[in-house]
């Protein structure tokens, strides 16, 4: 069977903020770039980011990148790589200005500068007073940024493959990644896209959990492709549960609500965060706030008929502030919680939100893997950026406002590095037919007929199992039980079948392909979590309640082959400044 093929200098898989910012660099430099996205680009999940993007512009309160760096290192519970963090916090400033120049409609201050709001975990002067570092376009910052980046890519004439699903990476005879096999969703036909460099920018994997702020499309496709290519995933046990999802539904209510002065109360009307974080209170780091909410509910102080949520109060801010700064939140709360926040509090509970871990990269977006003892090497021609990548700037817990920053900074830098790479490697490598057959096998496997567990049923069971066994609090017992069940489901997957074998826009088939990715990525989270015997950042173990810097200040690496774990050291040395040594983390 002959598969049609197209040739580009660079292939980008994913059209969210990271992919589009990389594409913009490449297209503007006249590099032939293809962007493959399983949805029309402005449907990518960057669109749902609300609160804003961090940069020490000092438009509202005094600030500098070094304080931002300190907050990020502390927020990461000292697991973030300090060279990458320094780099990101420095780059934040020109990155935000570049976005503004590109047209992002940021909210404005009276002096005409970009509006900045307070967010959790931000401080002035290395742990002092609250800072205001988050640049916002009302509470629709992600939407404003994603649309602007897509618009600029229209200007730059980037080549888009909209509604094409990436099946797998392909290699040449030497094992070098040389593009990807993709599926045109509309026709159901495969297409080989050959490229000198490939960037994975596929975003998050929140769909591995049942209750999540993530969209239907966030199925960890890039992470799973990397795993299948033999590349480990790093720090996958660190999965962020956002403190304020709409209770029972999971839609996000931005931390910006608390940044603007909203606060959490339990059923007794008590501002309970004062007990857990006396100084930062409601603007403590996300892991801290999420655990506090779950603890309140567990100890019987939850609100509502079943006592299973907490209340987010913001009516005291007044209608004017809410309509000006948080209009999207008001709309979401009215639609999904039936509560108008101008008058009544929003019922909230933590929701699966963000993967701190991902495909290991250096700070230029180049994928790196360990070789021998202690050292690592770049995987030639393969890049990753955005939520699917791990640079590692978030360590064990990401600060609000740092994810838009991460995707923009590292998307941009990956784009720039690819420009150099394709100049130095001008010839396309030819794809090994065996590699192509393997990728095709992922697709044709679903043509099998006969009885087997329906793919959608398996997907639901898997997500429920992840939610029950890899949530906010994790013990050996719960996780071991969960791992066994996940392994059973992975076995059942081999017999999963579709009843619909049609080609044209077969969404059941796409979801089945995504299920394989969810299983691979879900297992990476469960296995990494089971092995880490300490509590750090978002990984919280009642059976090992303390952080253990002696044994566990190291990055996890999960390999799909035999669920194997490996580890590598944290890079504690920044680029130009002194290192921040680990300290007890209090807010």
């Amino acid at each position, binding site marked *: 069977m002959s598969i049609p093929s197209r040739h580009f200098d660079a292939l980008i898989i994913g059209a969210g903020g990271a992919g589009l910012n990389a594409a913009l660099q490449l297209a503007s430099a006249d590099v032939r770039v293809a962007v493959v996205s399983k*949805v*029309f680009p*402005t*449907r*990518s*999940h960057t*669109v*749902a980011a609300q609160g804003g993007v961090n940069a020490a*512009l000092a438009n509202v309160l005094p600030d500098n990148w070094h304080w931002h760096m300190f907050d990020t290192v502390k927020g990461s519970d000292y697991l973030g790589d300090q060279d990458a963090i320094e780099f990101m916090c420095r780059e934040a400033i020109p990155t*935000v*200005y570049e976005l*503004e*120049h*590109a*047209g992002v*409609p*940021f*909210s*404005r*201050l*009276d*002096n*005409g*500068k*970009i509006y900045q709001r307070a967010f959790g975990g931000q401080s002035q002067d290395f742990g002092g007073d609250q800072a205001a570092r988050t640049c916002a*376009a009302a509470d*629709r910052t992600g*939407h*404003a940024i994603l*649309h*602007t980046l897509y*618009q*600029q890519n*229209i*200007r730059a004439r980037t080549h888009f493959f909209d509604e094409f699903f990436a099946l797998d990476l392909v290699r040449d005879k030497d094992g070098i990644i040389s593009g990807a096999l993709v599926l045109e969703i*509309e026709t159901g036909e495969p297409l080989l896209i050959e490229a000198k460099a490939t960037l994975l920018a596929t975003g998050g994997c929140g769909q591995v959990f049942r209750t999540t702020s993530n*969209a*239907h*499309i966030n199925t960890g496709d890039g992470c799973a492709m990397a795993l299948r290519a033999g590349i480990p995933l790093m720090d996958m046990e660190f999965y962020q549960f956002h403190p304020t999802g709409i209770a029972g*539904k999971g*839609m*996000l209510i931005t931390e910006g609500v608390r940044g603007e002065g909203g606060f959490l109360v339990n059923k007794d009307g008590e501002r309970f965060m004062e007990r857990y974080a006396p100084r930062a209170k409601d603007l403590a780091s996300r892991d801290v706030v999420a655990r506090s909410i779950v603890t309140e509910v567990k100890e019987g102080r939850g609100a509502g008929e079943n006592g299973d949520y907490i209340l987010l109060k913001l009516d005291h801010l007044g209608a004017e502030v809410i309509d000006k700064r948080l209009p999207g939140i008001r*709309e*979401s709360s009215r*639609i*999904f919680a*039936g509560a108008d926040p101008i008058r009544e509090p929003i019922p909230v509970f933590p929701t699966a939100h963000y993967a701190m871990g991902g495909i290991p990269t250096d700070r230029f977006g180049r994928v790196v893997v360990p070789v021998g003892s202690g050292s690592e090497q770049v995987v030639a021609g393969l890049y990753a950026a955005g939520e699917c990548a791990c640079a590692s700037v978030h360590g064990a817990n990401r600060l609000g406002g740092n994810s838009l920053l991460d995707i923009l900074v590292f998307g941009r830098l990956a784009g720039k590095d690819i420009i150099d790479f394709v100049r130095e490697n001008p010839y396309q490598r030819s794809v090994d037919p065996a590699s192509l057959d393997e990728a095709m096998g992922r697709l044709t496997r679903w043509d099998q007929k006969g009885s087997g567990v*329906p*793919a*959608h049923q398996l997907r639901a069971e898997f997500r429920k199992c992840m939610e029950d066994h890899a949530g906010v609090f994790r013990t050996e017992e719960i996780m071991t039980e969960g791992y066994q069940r996940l392994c059973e489901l992975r076995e059942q997957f081999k017999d999963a079948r*579709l*009843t*619909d074998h*049609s*080609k*044209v*826009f*077969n*969404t*059941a088939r796409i979801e089945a392909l995504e299920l394989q990715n969810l299983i691979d990525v879900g297992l990476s989270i469960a296995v990494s979590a089971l092995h880490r015997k300490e509590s750090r950042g978002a990984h919280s173990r009642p059976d090992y309640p303390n952080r253990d810097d002696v044994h566990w200040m190291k990055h996890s690496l999960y390999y799909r082959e035999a669920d194997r774990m490996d580890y590598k050291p944290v890079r504690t040395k920044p680029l130009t400044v002194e290192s921040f040594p680990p300290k007890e983390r209090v807010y």
Partner: protein
Amino acid sequence: MKISVYRYNPDTDQKPRMQDYEVRPFQGMMLRDALLEIKKQDESFAFRHSCGEGVCGSDGVNANGKNCLACVTPITELSQPIVVRPFPGRPVIRDLVVDMTQFYEHYRAVKPYLVRTDPLPEQEILQSPEDRDKLDGLYECILCGCCSTACPSFWWNPEKFHGPAALLQAWRFLADTRDQATEERLDALEGPYKLFRCHTIMNCVDVCPKGLNPTAAIGLIKDLMLEKGF
């Protein structure tokens, strides 16, 4: 609860048909939840959807004769039996999935990006809060297509009339004090079709899930043309 949905699979069907499904409603159920329930019963049913909270713009459909975004449309707002069809006037690919290529082409045709000819400052381009307010009600568009596919002028002249979504974005950049391509933008909108096929029917305003007003934006473009002596 009975839902009747439009079904057409070019691989297997000679012609489209309506198919009825029985769905158990729950408190707070949105139309998207109902469609997902149908998908569980019948995996061959196809529709686009993603974020589930009205920001990605994927799941525009026509329910009981009116375009809407399924994920933010409570089923309690729809009289039963609910009849769900694809957007009107667009070629159907399969079931509720339509071909939106032409819609996106019109969007791209209005050059929906900031044009700046002056050298860029080291920091941000300054903009007063009042000037920034002029973008409210414009930049929030999610490109779902509810408006343009509800517009009779767009049904008649889909090749030539830009349609409300694209024109709203044309105004979004004309209204931005940072943009420096006003003359070129207005030039490009001249002629009897691209802009002037809007007959203020206002279906676009009626269906916009984000509460935006493309008709008003089109009026403002016309005003600006007059002011500039076009």
